[in-house]
């Protein structure tokens, strides 16, 4: 019996209850939720060390005779995911407290925020630790429910619109998950992952393939694998910055984790390499093409998120130790980097009043620290050496070359192309939002024609090309919706104004609150730590992958000596 294992789930739940009771005392709420998450970080680190030294840590809840009860298992994979997610959630909470303290989020009732956030953390931890399918379902529901509330905080029209799609899609995938669970139970008479690992082998191929496909589709919706990813870029960007950050970092990765766990533990004999690799290729390419087409930084990042899920699915699809090791490394790297980027975008929104490329310019001069904070993770995302994004991609591509099948080689090429296109997408954002002057931004917005209008041919101020309703100007394309937005800039009296107008009228905060910058900087720093410890970290993920491929450490730890 290991009493550390359930704590990452129980502590946040107790914390949620406590913060709910303290809802009239915001200061006490902050102290409780921060100390709970700090404790979870410490426990996760302890679990990581124990799982690495002593093998998987198992706890049976409720003192039923194994294998009847509910098991929580922290093996190397779970412990790593747990540690990374704990650190990320701690930083995001600190950031959102910083945001709330400066008193801008009047539309987000803080008294609800803390309990919901803690329930989300409990759900994520439980998903990483769950040792049986139904417990996994319950943890998905926990984190989804918290995410429904966080996404629709304040109930504004845009959030309700985005929230409707998000909630319905996820309820549908939950129903699918229940159907899969019923099918698995009907076929095997158990839901414990370790027992299933043994029993599924005895099933006829057609039955086990059906179960596998059901589970894969369910988890692919959560992980946002194309074509099941279309809900994501539409729903994430509307939420408050810290919420988007934690969703982007963690929720999709829970889906990836579930795919990885199920593929390695339950269906080792049927890796479905071709299917997964095609899905990975399409996810990478379509995602990044979508990112290039966006003119809002939040939407652009949401598309890169979808795109980079493809790398992880690629590693899982290879089904070799090297591939899985690369995928695990990439998941850990990507959780931190994607969260950091969304936090920085929140800072941009705070400093410049918008995240639309139409309205931004000159941020480098306006806020040099912000520029550094954006530049470092953006380059890391694109995979510029020597940062961890580069190391992770090299690991995956190397694994692909080792396999050497035509499809794997195609994916390696696709991966390199995606990496380059990511660089293009973030470099475009960098050039437009940070490098040109606010005046240039303003002039471009003024010169853009309205959706059905002719451009001003007589006095061209800004070179532009019109193509099928898009207008290309100043290094990017603006779609019809942007053209409508640009009209608002023309009207000097309109409440919705661009950076140039805001600066001219002196309506921007002079500087960013330190309580928001510091957490974002800390997370950027944490993502650079992956670069420094890339060697030991890859050793660790290699050991993780070896465990996952062998399966015996997990099975022995859960079922004791009675491995069949």
């Amino acid at each position, binding site marked *: 019996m290991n009493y550390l294992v359930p704590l990452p789930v129980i502590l946040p739940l107790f914390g949620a209850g406590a913060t709910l009771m303290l809802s009239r005392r915001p200061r006490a709420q902050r102290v409780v939720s921060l100390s709970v998450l700090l404790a979870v970080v410490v426990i996760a680190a302890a679990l990581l060390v124990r799982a690495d030294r002593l093998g998987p840590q198992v706890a049976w809840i409720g003192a039923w005779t194994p294998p009847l009860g509910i098991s929580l298992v922290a093996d190397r994979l779970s412990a790593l995911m747990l540690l990374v997610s704990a650190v990320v959630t701690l930083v995001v909470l600190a950031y959102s407290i910083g945001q709330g303290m400066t008193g801008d989020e009047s539309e987000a009732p803080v008294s609800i925020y803390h309990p919901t956030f803690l329930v989300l953390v409990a759900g994520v931890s439980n998903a990483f630790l769950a040792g049986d399918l139904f417990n996994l379902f319950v943890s998905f529901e926990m984190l989804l429910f918290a995410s429904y509330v966080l996404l*629709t905080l304040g*109930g504004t029209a845009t959030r309700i*619109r985005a929230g409707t799609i998000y909630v*319905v899609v996820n309820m549908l995938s939950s129903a699918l998950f229940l159907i899969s669970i019923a099918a698995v139970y009907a076929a095997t008479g158990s839901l414990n992952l370790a027992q299933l690992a043994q029993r599924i082998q005895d099933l006829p191929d057609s039955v086990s393939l059906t179960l596998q496909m059901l589970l894969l589709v369910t988890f692919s919706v959560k992980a946002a694998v194309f074509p099941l990813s279309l809900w994501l870029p539409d729903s994430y960007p509307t939420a408050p910055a810290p919420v988007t950050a934690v969703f982007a970092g963690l929720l999709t990765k829970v889906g990836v984790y579930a795919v990885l766990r199920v593929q390695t533990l339950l269906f080792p004999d049927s890796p479905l390499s071709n299917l997964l690799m095609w899905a990975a290729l399409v996810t990478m390419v379509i995602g990044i093409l979508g990112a290039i087409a966006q003119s809002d930084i939040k939407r652009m990042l949401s598309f890169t998120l979808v795109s980079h899920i493809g790398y992880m699915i690629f590693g899982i699809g290879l089904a070799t130790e090297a591939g899985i090791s690369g995928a695990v490394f990439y998941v850990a790297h990507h959780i931190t980097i994607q969260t950091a980027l969304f936090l920085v975008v929140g800072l941009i929104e705070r400093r410049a009043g918008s995240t639309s490329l139409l309205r931004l310019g000159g941020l480098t001069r306006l806020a040099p620290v912000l520029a550094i904070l954006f530049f470092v993770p953006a380059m890391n995302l694109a995979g510029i050496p020597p940062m961890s994004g580069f190391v992770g991609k090299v690991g995956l591509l190397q694994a692909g070359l080792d396999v050497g099948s035509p499809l794997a080689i195609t994916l390696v090429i696709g991966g390199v192309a995606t990496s380059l296109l990511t660089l293009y997408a973030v470099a475009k954002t960098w050039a437009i939002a940070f490098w040109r002057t606010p005046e240039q931004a303003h002039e471009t917005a003024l010169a853009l024609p309205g959706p059905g209008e*002719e*451009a001003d041919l007589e006095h061209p101020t800004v070179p532009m090309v019109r193509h099928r309703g898009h207008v290309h100007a100043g290094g990017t394309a603006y779609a019809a*919706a942007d053209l409508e937005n640009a009209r608002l800039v023309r009207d000097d009296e309109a409440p919705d104004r661009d950076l140039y107008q805001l600066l001219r009228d002196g309506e921007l905060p002079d500087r960013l609150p330190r309580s928001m910058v510091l957490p974002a900087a800390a997370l950027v720093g944490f993502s650079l730590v992956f670069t420094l410890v890339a060697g030991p970290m890859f050793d660790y993920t290699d050991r993780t992958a070896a465990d996952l491929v062998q399966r015996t450490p997990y099975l022995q730890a859960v079922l004791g000596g009675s491995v069949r």
Partner: protein
Amino acid sequence: MSTNVSLIVTASALIGCGVYLILERSLTRVLAGLLIMGNGVNILFLIAGGRAGKAPIEGTADAADMSDPLPQALVLTAIVIALATTAFLLAMAHRSWQLNGNDDVQDDVEDASIRRLAAADEASDSHDLATGGDDDEVLTEEGA
């Protein structure tokens, strides 16, 4: 394992109706669809539990005659979760009605902009244009 055909038929009918309703635009109908589908899924669990038997309470019957308690526990959990989700979705439908006067599921922002684009397409072909000197080449390429 013997299965009860009527349960299978009921489950598939419920899930079919649920899917049909989910495809509707109004959020309340979508919700009704999700509920009906959820009931169908719960019946699937009954099928997964095997043949029906005595209540699984120790001491009341022989263990061999009891029905399997685990699927029933799972269904119970699923029902509780469905209750909470229903409450949340109803609140969202109400909020949507407050804001927009209806509870229709609205279009994706991007979809809406693409549709406007398609509507404006005929017009846009007629006035492809380039301002500034250097873009003429681009025009011929892209205007094609």
